[in-house]
């Protein structure tokens, strides 16, 4: 490819991008600290679903956010005017901003943006509207619900909650969307388009998503068991995850704690099949991410897998890693073993875990694996059962989606 990134007008030198705030509203706790502690301890966030009526479903477990009282987490937006996905996003973003110490009217950073990924948008709102259609007819749709239906309101809620006046972008690239959002935020900071970015992902537990995966036979009987020889599927889950990105220079100037540096990212599209993953395209996505980050495969100390726990995903993902890494596979684990599949938030939760792994020195476990699938290769280290004390320097975060959307982000330790 010719003249990449150099077309036209002179651009200022790219800025280094760091993560200085984390937020997580999850089945593993209502804050990033609680979430990371639970991940390190290997706890499970999976329990009987309560966000929708499970009558008639054979699979009734989900990784839901328990005890989330939106009004306790949101200070500027009123929960009654926003769907659950927007609430989860805004609550996680507020946590990330507070964590970064940027809630007070801040330093010279005057352009703050948000970008959030989602799979199903305001799925609970759409579900309620459908229930009204079925029960009472289209003529009685609730205007209040209609106003809350657009997925684009997820990023808008973040801006409204935090008083941001910059861009508010919602990405609908399904279960890779969290990584799309982190990557876009990285580009905004790197190129000087924004000085602070809240990025992440959000989705709400809902009936239609659960039914869809149920019908595909993709739901696990009890818990998801990524990398297990008898893994039998995902558990649907929900949550909001957020990262605050800023230029390294401003983080240093204000003495902020730096969790990690965003080194780069890559995206590809399978253009192959709507629901089956495709190893060649994932391998190319990993290579693009490495190129973007300026690293070699051997630099990667840990892979935070997409790791859904379906037979197809895990074998395809390991094959792709093997291809991109020249035959070897770095330690690779799936936090979905604890969290379930949080859809559009999944890769954002993965990014939060990656930042914690780099700054605290651990590798999260694949907690539910019993016998590692020998078909994946005898050398696969999926960090079974228990988190490992280890200080990675470069980690890689995977997000793949229906529709063939792949995105891989790379994070590095920041040594002052």
């Amino acid at each position: 490819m010719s003249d990449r990134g150099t077309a036209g007008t002179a651009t200022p030198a790219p800025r280094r991008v760091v993560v200085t705030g984390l937020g997580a509203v999850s089945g593993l706790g209502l804050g990033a600290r609680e979430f990371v502690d639970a991940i390190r301890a290997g706890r499970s966030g999976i329990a009987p679903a309560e966000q929708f009526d499970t009558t008639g479903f054979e699979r009734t477990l989900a990784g839901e956010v328990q005890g989330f009282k939106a009004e306790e987490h949101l200070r500027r937006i009123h929960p009654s005017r926003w769907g659950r996905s927007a609430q989860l996003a805004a609550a996680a973003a507020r946590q990330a901003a507070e964590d970064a110490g940027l809630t007070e009217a801040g330093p010279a950073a005057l352009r703050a943006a948000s970008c959030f990924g989602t799979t199903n948008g305001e799925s609970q709102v759409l579900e309620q509207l459908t229930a009204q259609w079925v029960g009472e007819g289209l003529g009685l749709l609730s205007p209040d619900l209609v106003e809350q239906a657009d997925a684009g309101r997820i990023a808008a809620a973040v801006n409204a909650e935090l008083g941001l006046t910059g861009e508010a972008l919602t990405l609908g690239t399904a279960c890779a969307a969290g990584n799309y959002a982190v990557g876009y935020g990285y580009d905004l900071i790197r190129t000087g388009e924004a000085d602070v970015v809240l990025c992440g992902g959000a989705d709400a537990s809902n009936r239609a998503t659960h039914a869809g995966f149920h019908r595909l036979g993709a739901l696990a009987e009890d818990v998801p068991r990524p990398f297990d020889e008898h893994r039998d599927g995902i558990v649907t889950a929900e949550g909001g995850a957020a990262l605050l990105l800023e230029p390294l220079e401003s983080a240093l100037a204000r003495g902020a704690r730096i969790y990690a540096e965003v080194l780069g990212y890559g995206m590809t599209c399978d253009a192959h099949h709507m629901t089956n993953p495709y190893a060649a395209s994932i391998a190319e996505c990993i290579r693009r991410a490495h190129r973007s980050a300026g690293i070699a495969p051997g630099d990667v100390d840990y892979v935070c897998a997409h790791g859904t726990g379906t037979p197809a995903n895990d074998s395809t993902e390991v094959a792709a890693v093997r291809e991109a890494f020249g035959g070897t596979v770095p330690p690779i684990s799936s936090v979905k073993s604890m969290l379930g599949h949080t859809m559009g938030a999944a890769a954002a939760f993965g990014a939060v875990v990656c930042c914690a792994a780099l700054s605290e020195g651990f590798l999260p476990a694949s907690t539910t694996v019993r016998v590692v699938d020998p078909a994946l290769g005898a050398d696969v280290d999926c960090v079974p059962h228990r988190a490992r004390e280890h200080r990675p320097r470069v980690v890689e975060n995977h997000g793949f989606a229906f529709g063939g959307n792949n995105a891989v982000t790379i994070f590095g330790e920041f040594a002052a």
Partner: protein
Amino acid sequence: MTAPVLMETTETPVGAETVVAPVDVVACAAFSAAGAGLAPLAAVADGRLPAGTEAGALPGDPAAYPPAQAVLPVSGFRPEEVLGRKGLSRLTRTEQLAAAACTLALEGPAGPAASDTGIVLGTSVGSARALAEFTRDTFVQERPYYVNPSQFPGTLMNAAAGRTAIRHGLTGVNATVSGGPLAALHAVRYARGALLNGHADRLLTGAVEELSAHTAWAWRRSGALAPGVPLGEGAAVFALQRAGSYGTGQRPVARLLACETGFANPSEGLAHVGRRLAACVRTALRRSGVAPEEVTVVAPGAAGRRGWSAVEDRALREVFGTSPRTLRVQPVLGETHSAGAGLQLAAVLATWRTPATERDVALITSIGPDGSVGCLVAVRPGA
């Protein structure tokens, strides 16, 4: 006490603001109530549909639409002519409109490789009808999971972009953005960044909205349509490449300069949102190196929305004083929600099919009920 805020609102230009690099529209396709393609959209500037435009067929059951609601389906949409018949009935209308528009926008001179070609599509919720029908099955079937598995992918927002990529083997960046009336502006801004940051060499960029009884009733119930404006649908897709990255013999359809988006919380007052739009326009013009008096046409986005049209008009007066010539697509094509900004741009480009004799600069603006604002600066290519 008010909660602490992250950032003070400011309209002061900040130091890092740079002049943007241009991205060119090398091809474009549109479907609207005016028909297929750009040419019929030229009549929109005269405030009408082209003479003899056949009325489009209403998608779904016509009897299910709200009575006395004026609707404007896409005219002359024959997806089988563009996409073939195979598998067509399994696609949602959103997928059909998007795939057909992308397919037409790919025609013309051979462009960059498929691995460096991608798709960036704007939407609101994807196919509202597919979502509603799929979810209805969870309520009315014997078991809640007795849904049609082949319909499941079509309920996702990224279905149209994913299916279109499969059809053409496009393995480059594939993104879907959601943003109501701003959707196409979000898509253009995302695509601009992806092209200039080296993630892709050509991006089929645009937005789509389908008409259905579900969305028609949603609009009726919310009362959000401006009086006298019909409800519409459509798609517009622009093949974007970095300026200078394609053959010199190829004349672009338009050159896109700054595309800016921002936000202001409407609960702090609609005037606040209007001021944010004005600031956004000023930033975009500065970053484009364009003075307000150089803008020759404005295509506003909120002309079909009750309450918001006045907010947008006030913002434009704030920037321009006496507003330049205004091209309102909504009274002619209907309110097309997430296809809106795409059709605004397409309607401008329809009037630019011959080389500019004088400098011609268009401004596309948009304002969403959630407080999102955005604009795009486009320049007519010279001879």
